[in-house]
């Protein structure tokens, strides 16, 4: 269970939050102008990277505020928390923080326990 720092309430147990999937997916201004394929992409397709992921959380059992989180999905480490109206931090900011449990690359199994 991870610990998430709500920008408004501070550090809380993950059980107080709900995840809202990928962040920075903007609802199209004029859906009618989109092709079926593009609209389908908006409704159903989200990035699913192993590694750095920009995602949304809501403090659903707390202040009910939405915010964004940068998390490494291969370790569940939270690298940054920022408010919805704040600028998306650049990927380069996190390049040196990529650390998985086994020191493995961002693509690979999470099951190594022995240091080579």
């Amino acid at each position, binding site marked *: *269970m*991870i*610990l998430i720092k709500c920008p408004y309430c501070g550090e809380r*147990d993950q059980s107080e939050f*709900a995840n*809202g999937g990928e962040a920075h997916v*903007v*609802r199209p201004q*004029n*859906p*009618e102008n*989109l092709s*079926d394929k593009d*609209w*389908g992409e*908006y*409704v*159903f397709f989200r990035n699913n990277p192993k590694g750095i992921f920009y995602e*949304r959380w*809501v403090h*659903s059992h707390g202040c*009910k*505020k*939405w915010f964004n989180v940068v998390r490494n999905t291969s*370790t*569940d480490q939270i690298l940054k928390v920022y408010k*919805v*109206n704040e600028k998306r931090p650049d990927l380069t900011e996190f390049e040196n923080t990529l650390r998985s*449990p*086994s*020191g493995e690359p961002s693509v690979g199994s999470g*099951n*190594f*326990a*022995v*240091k*080579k």
Partner: protein
Amino acid sequence: MTAINNECPYISKNKITFSFDGKTFPAFEGDTVASALLRNNIRLVGRSFKYHRPRGIYTCGIEEPNALVQILSEHNEPNTRATVKRIYDGIKISSQNRWPSLKFDLGAINNILSPIFSAGFYYKTFMGPKGFWKNIYEPLIRKSAGLGKPPKNFRSKSIHQYHNTDIVIIGGGLSGLIAARKFINTKYKVLLIEQDSFLGGILKNTNKVESINDNSPSEWIKETEDLLSNSTNITVLKNTLVTTYNFTNHLVALEDKFSGKKIDLNKSELTLHKIRTSQTILSNGHIERFISFRNNDLPGVMLASSFEKYIHRYGVVPEEKPVIFTNNSSTFSLLKSIISLGCKPQAYIDSRRKDEIESEIKKFLKTNNILSYFDAEVEGCDGNKKIEKITVRQGKNYYKINSSMLCVSGGFNPDIHLFTQSKGLVKWDKQIASFKPDTSFQKTVTLGSVSGNYNFKKLCDEIDEKLSFLKTKKLNFEIKLNVSNKFSVKELWETKKKNNSNWSKTFIDLHNDVTTKDLKQAITEGFDRIEHLKRYTTNSMGTDQGKISSINSLAIVSKLLKKEISEVGTTTYRPPYAPLSFAAIAGRSTYEFYDPERKTSIHSWHLKNNAVFEDVGQWKRPWYFKAYNNETMHQAVQRESKILRESAGILDGSTLGKIEIKGRDALEFMNLMYTNAFTKMKPMTSRYALMLGEDGMIKDDGIICKINDQHFIATTTSSGAPKVLADMEEYLQTEWPHLKVYLNSITEQFSTFNISGPKTRDIMTRVFPNIDFSNEAFPFMTFKNFDYQNTKIRIMRASFTGELGYEIYISPKYGLELWKKIFSCGKAFNLIPYGTETMHLLRAEKGYIVIGQETDGTVTPIDLNYNWMIGKNKRDFIGKRSLSRPDTARDDRKQLVGLSPINKSDTIEEGQHIVEINKLPNKIKNPIKYLGHVSSSYHSPNLNQSIGLAMIKGGNNLLGQKFFVTVSGKTQNIPVEIVNPVFIDPENKRLTS
């Protein structure tokens, strides 16, 4: 024979009795099942999992693979570790996995057949002849499963205790205590957790340490314990085992509150501690490992340090004349312990060469005239249900020694289980021939033997250095030892058998009956990765997770594969560290507290008036009211429905979700959230509205009240309320932050009553004599606010039954009072209370849909012919674009229709399907084409026939046509006619007049 260590300070002299397999034995308070059995010279305590081989007590702790027993006096608790479970007077215990008795077990036939139970046995046989697997083999295999017998009915009162703390120290042994003393009276909040009932660990388990700062170990422990308990910032938990180490330093630990005591069922017997800490200090020590040799499972084989623990902790010398077999220096203290008690080892066998063995050991052996074999190993042992003879190999020579116990030490493994759970990386250390922690993934520090430091002299320095980043005191303790400070070990994992025999086995996993031969076979079959091999052989998958053997299996495998152990890697240690009680995990949030019950302010009235309740989400809603005791649900609902259409009924609708929406952009927001157009809607009117997902499918419905363009009140379904509010907040915060709108949930702020039926106006006029309820003054789908007594109420004219109806909103403080008043006024008009079932029946007669019944996440407003609810001129609303996708725009989608049986006495069943044939075959081989399903069906008391709503493919074009509806359990279908779904008052006269 067993002997007694009268010097043992830790065991009480209070005598108690316990029973094992029906016989009563004496013991002391403080004994574990194992120490009590050993005290009574009982060595055979169970039968093994697969081969039903006789098994004894192997260890003195949580790592025990063999001695699992059933606690008859505690609801038959199965698979309890005899080495951990402390007994109390009168406790009843039995052995497991044997029939008819422990001494004579018929299942031992498996041992005779054991050569064919090789790795992968089940996968390779029992496949034919056809039908035999399903009907004969498989049921037989299933029946012979398992170890202990199932427990008996039981309701635990285990509780949870959360902790938020700065430091957690796991393990109250020497390192843990030194570390804890550094934190005394510091600013840190510290939790020290010890799995045993006492602190001290190695200080109490052995005589290795002679003194600390010139105090005896027990004095030092006492001093430390006093200091810790006087320090306000440190809490000590004993009898508490940390089982789980999750991300972000979240720990789970189980405290046994009744260790050594009879459980009081009114109290909480277990506490599950759920701990969040900033820093974890692991000082949880090491575990001794065994050596594999022929018949290394015979009762009488015991780990050497465990033997020593029985002496020092429980005052039991399991055997006066044991044989010691070791590959390391640690057994010296055992030798000394045994001699000091006036006993004498029958022999000492050390696999190390003479020159590798410490001179003090050699000197001690000589002085005490102990038969010694150096550069030697135990080839195997023999005996009937216990060790009788031990065979020693020294070079090419074999020696036979008579003894009934064999103490084995194969070295020590740092107990890295929790460390790897924390996702830390381990590394092979040749010096200690084991894995030890290397890189922490979390804020974790390891101290003492868990970190691979077996050197007492270096302990204080290690602790000071590793905790130097914290603001603590520097401490130094002078630790004097009885034994050599250095630890030396020579790798030895398995000894070679003298003769090949199919029945004498060399075990690698005692719990799961896996032999070293199984490992070899698995490798020859191609399983060359340790995890893969583990799955094929079930090695280290038993209840002990291979605590004394998993490193051994890695070593054996690496030799077979001709690889380094570090290359082979370790298996994944999975939480929990030791089996963890389900009752404790569940805590109090189960049984009567499993899920909160939500009750309305009228609940007590419903109870008094014989309501039968239905669960709607967490809410308890009246389902129907019994007019008399024997009234069935069908009777009640028919009665309620009929009376309502004749006079009036009232429903407690307080559970409906209600949301207040306010702000200068409220209108725009509502137009985006709902399909309907609200712009031209007049203030103080209301409208039925639909909410879609972006996929175009109906998600929720409700009535929207418009106070003005800046202020709305929306109702939602009872179970959809939290989701609708959350979705609205989400869109406001993330998609449209520019919209100035605020939302508040007001579900709980109002008692809501739906009163409807032709007599409603009369009743309302009596309840609220000052309000004009005439059709002109108070038309359909309008609402008004009124002062009522000391509060404000809102009344809306709306109906879900198809009859004249009003909804009343009032503060819950006055709700019950008003409800009662309505009844006293309604008495003259035959007003009845009705429940959700009648509501559903009446709305079905009227052709109204219910979310989750007519809709199932695949239904659009168009499918329901609710096109009129879609704001055509709106540029956008949630889900709009999806309605024009090729599949959603099809005109032969499933559409809402009504069903009427052609034979009026037929009953249409909900959930059945509409087909084109009048009879189904007895056995359906090829799929039968169907048009759709019956989404709702009721017996309508007002039409005196069965009616149905159905979602049917292309239903709009099928009105008037005849089809068939299937009947559950029958092949004969019912002929029905597709009709308009509105069965009652299609002109809405009743609603609007």
